[in-house]
């Protein structure tokens, strides 16, 4: 019964969505780097290096490499991912450290490794290694019942790579690791953590938007109401209530300190632009303003393939990488953006479905990590192009131009599919 073929056991739905996304992505990378001055016909007369001058051709090559990667990933024994999870993680940490030491700064960030003509961003690959290690650790514990010490180890595993990444000045890629919380939540992490984080985020945003005195007044009124309406709190939990109140006030006043002293000037500006996009439309607000104009001018059905004026005339910066969604929005309109959002939702929902059918905690946790990481990118990338999130330089999975990003997401996704494919084999065996 060893004859069960991969073609039966691999999750065809995910593969199909993946291929669609990569194909649509390639189309948009072509549009984003299209120039009317360079006719398509020139492709036929170009030699290899000439071809490699086209972004879309490079992306095509990266896709080809991805297909090879997929084959390799599916051939490898699924137990290897479990077994070598820590080894891969350790290797990754070393690679990040090495990068930190030897990398030349590119655009202010020391996160790129140069291997001959190639440039790799190890941070991209930290995602799946960390996901593997965290899943492996999760399989050995019961998050709800385990001692505080185990939980600290898990937190350590999760936080070490992002700290190294922050050290290399690539904050955006570090934030992604916050997505792991969703996976841990599924495995039993207290919802209180999510709630507290959400509340803290709310307080932070409010502190930036609303005058301090109002906030202090509002929180004082809330505290008073809680104490009056619920005398039990007054009697038994007064220290806790007072503590929360103090922390909240501390945050309100700490925000200024954090904003002015901790954040770097370019990060301050990104937050400023998010809060008030029209403050400086030609300066810091340029990216967001032009990106919104590009997407907004697409209308219902878009301007048509290769007809986007914002895209073609270089008004949107980084349009084939981080701002690829602008090209979609401008040339394909609301129908196009809905299609992309639909594809992401389909993929993420499918990944959750696949994760839930895993018998092992390892497989399931890993599946949730995959969904959460992709979701985080989707959320922040699209959010920033339409002015709902600060400009954080992270790519849109499977769409953005770039080898590192495409490969890391391919590996991330197909390790899950490999584990999933063997799940059936296990059963058969």
């Amino acid at each position, binding site marked *: 019964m060893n004859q069960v073929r991969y073609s039966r056991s691999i999750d065809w739905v995910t593969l199909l969505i993946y291929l669609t996304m990569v194909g649509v992505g390639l189309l948009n990378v072509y549009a984003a780097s299209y120039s009317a001055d360079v006719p398509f016909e020139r492709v036929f007369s170009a030699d290899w290096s000439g071809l490699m001058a086209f972004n879309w051709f490079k992306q095509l090559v990266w896709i080809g490499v991805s297909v090879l990667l997929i084959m390799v990933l599916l051939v490898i024994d699924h137990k290897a991912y479990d077994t070598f999870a820590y080894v891969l993680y350790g290797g990754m940490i070393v690679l990040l450290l090495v990068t930190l030491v030897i990398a030349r700064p590119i655009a202010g960030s020391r996160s790129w490794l140069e291997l001959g003509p190639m440039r790799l961003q190890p941070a991209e690959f930290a995602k799946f290694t960390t996901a593997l290690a965290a899943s492996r650790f999760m399989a050995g514990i019961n998050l709800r019942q385990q001692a505080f010490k185990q939980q600290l180890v898990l937190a350590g595993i999760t936080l070490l790579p992002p700290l190294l990444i922050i050290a290399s000045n690539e904050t955006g890629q570090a934030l992604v690791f916050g997505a792991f919380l969703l996976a841990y939540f599924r495995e039993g992490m207290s919802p209180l953590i999510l709630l507290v984080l959400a509340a803290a985020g709310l307080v932070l945003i409010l502190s930036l938007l609303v005058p301090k005195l109002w906030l202090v007044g509002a929180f004082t009124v809330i505290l008073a109401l809680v104490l009056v309406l619920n005398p039990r709190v007054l009697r038994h939990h007064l220290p806790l209530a007072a503590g929360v109140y103090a922390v909240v006030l501390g945050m309100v006043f700490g925000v200024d300190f954090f904003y002015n002293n901790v954040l770097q000037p370019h990060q301050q500006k990104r937050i400023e632009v998010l809060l008030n996009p029209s403050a400086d439309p030609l300066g810091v607000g340029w990216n967001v303003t032009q990106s919104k104009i590009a997407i*907004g001018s697409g209308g219902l059905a878009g301007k048509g393939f290769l007809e986007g*004026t914002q895209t073609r005339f270089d008004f949107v910066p980084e349009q084939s990488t981080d701002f690829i969604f602008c090209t979609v929005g401008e040339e394909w309109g609301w129908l196009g953006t809905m299609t992309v959002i639909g594809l992401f939702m389909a993929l993420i929902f499918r990944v*959750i479905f696949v994760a839930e059918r895993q018998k092992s905690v390892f497989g399931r946790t890993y599946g949730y990590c995959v969904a959460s990481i992709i979701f985080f990118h989707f959320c922040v990338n699209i959010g920033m192009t339409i002015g709902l999130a600060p400009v954080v330089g992270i790519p849109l999975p499977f769409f953005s131009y770039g080898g590192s990003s495409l490969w890391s997401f391919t590996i991330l996704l197909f390790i899950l599919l490999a584990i999933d494919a063997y799940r059936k084999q296990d059963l058969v065996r």
Partner: protein
Amino acid sequence: MQYLEGRKFVVLGIFLAVAVVFAVRLFHIQVLDGSYKLAADRNTLQRIVQMPYRGVIYDRNGKILVQNTPVYDLMVVPREVKKLDTARFCQLLQMPVQELRDGLRAAKIYSRVKASPLVQNLSTPELAAIQDNLIDFPGFSVKPRMARSYLTQNMAHALGYVGPVSPTMLEKPKYAKYVPGDFLGISGIESYYEKELMGRRGVQYRMVNVRGIEKGAFRDGEFDTLSVAGQDLHLSIDPELQKYGEYLMQGKKGSVVAIDPKTGEILAFVSAPSFDPAMLTGKGSGNRYMELLRDTARPLFDRPLAAAYSPGSVFKLVNEAIALQEHVVTPYTGFPCNWKLVRCTHRHEYPANLTIATKNSCNPYFYQVMFATVRQGRSPSKYEDVALGLADWRKHVTSFGLAQHLEVDLPGERMGLIPSPAFYDKRYGHHRWTYKTIYSLSIGQGEIQVTPLQMANLMCIFANRGYYYAPHFVRSIGNRGPLSRYRQRHYTSVDSSHFNAIVPGMVAVVDGRGGTGEHASLLDVGISVAGKTGTVQNYHGIDHATFGGFAPANDPKIAISVFIENAGFGGSSAAPLAGLMMEKYLRGKVAPWRHRWEEWLPGSADRFVSKRNRR
């Protein structure tokens, strides 16, 4: 574990919530909010206005009078000016440093990033002198433009000039299509026919990238329009006659207007003193304009249109025509030249009929003619009677195109004045004036005012025996002919038979023995001239000399009015000048024995005034 499995829905819920937020937000900015579309167009679309070629102006013979030549404006973009070597720049352009500083400041106030003109109207040789050096001065560039150039030194008043649109004009809705730096007709025909001459501007939409580099036409030029050249104007002006008229009027103030009575086409339009139309175009035109403006002889004043004089004795003809129409006199009515009511100009034979009275310009005769018109006994009260009579009289007079705009195709036309009963009521009080108060009107003096153009038109009416075409300069716009209103005959309220009764008197004035206008006679070359002299008393000094007439008397081809300010008796200067003009037009040359007139007439008005009359 059952409990934890439920958490799946929480996670999926978070995913879905974000997707819904994105969908709604995207629907808002992409479908509902149209402002992003406009913003995208503003980003990429560049509007390039193509100025049309201004229409060319031709004379009566189809020769070009006004055409377009390329000139160059030196433009400056203040932001791009770097380390300007002021001394060298000023030396190169031969401009004072202060002028450069003022110009740069004005440009900066207009815009730091847009180009504004620093020096305008550089000619091609002037450009050649500076062009090679311009590369050393970043921020300066040269913009070619079409400017007017003139192939004639005459008719400055009729042609008008073209100048930059002024800020005050731009505030008016009429000039909504213009932007600062545009040129338009400021006066004369250039202004009156601005719409036709200007043509239609072309607009091209180009797409530019983020660096402002052109990336081709917008939607393959779907919205582009080509500029349409302005229409050419064909004037009725006879350039030879015009030149001759300006020559004869040298040194004097006044005007000569000659019209073809059969069409209303203006053949000559002289306003003296005149100037070269080229003075108001090209570099330094501003200074030259100020010079003309300050001249006490007022060369910029368009006398044929805007100077209003009393018509003097010429107006007696109108009074006679009205009296005949009212049947209060006949051509054979005689009135004594009795000097009691009004003095006559000179002693002459008994005015036994209209012709004799006209020939001698007998003041008492025409006093009585107008008395008969206005005092017909419409009312027993002499006050009431004269008021009613004057009202009727005025109705007739205005049908001669007086006290109204003739609607010539030139801006700035004055109406003149024909007093009404209300006018005198206001001045003297109701029933406080009689014929004795207003009798000056009978000899064309007093409150009455006509323009030289109206006077010439009056001569057209007598030439045509009772009708006129509104005088005009442009006989054809492109090849469409004149404006339609110039094809319309205007009849007076006087029958043409009465004009036939008057014309012999006008002929007698010029051709009769001892006529006041005998110096205008062309009988020696076989042309019979009809006319009437006038000597206009005025408050400004010596009388103005006038003459109105037409020739040939039986088949008139030219009607003319001449006003020479402060030149005394109309017969001694205005009449011979009119005679020369008519001969020049009808024969193309002047008989040799009149060359002494040609030599004598140009010059100061003083020489026509006898020492006795100089005050």
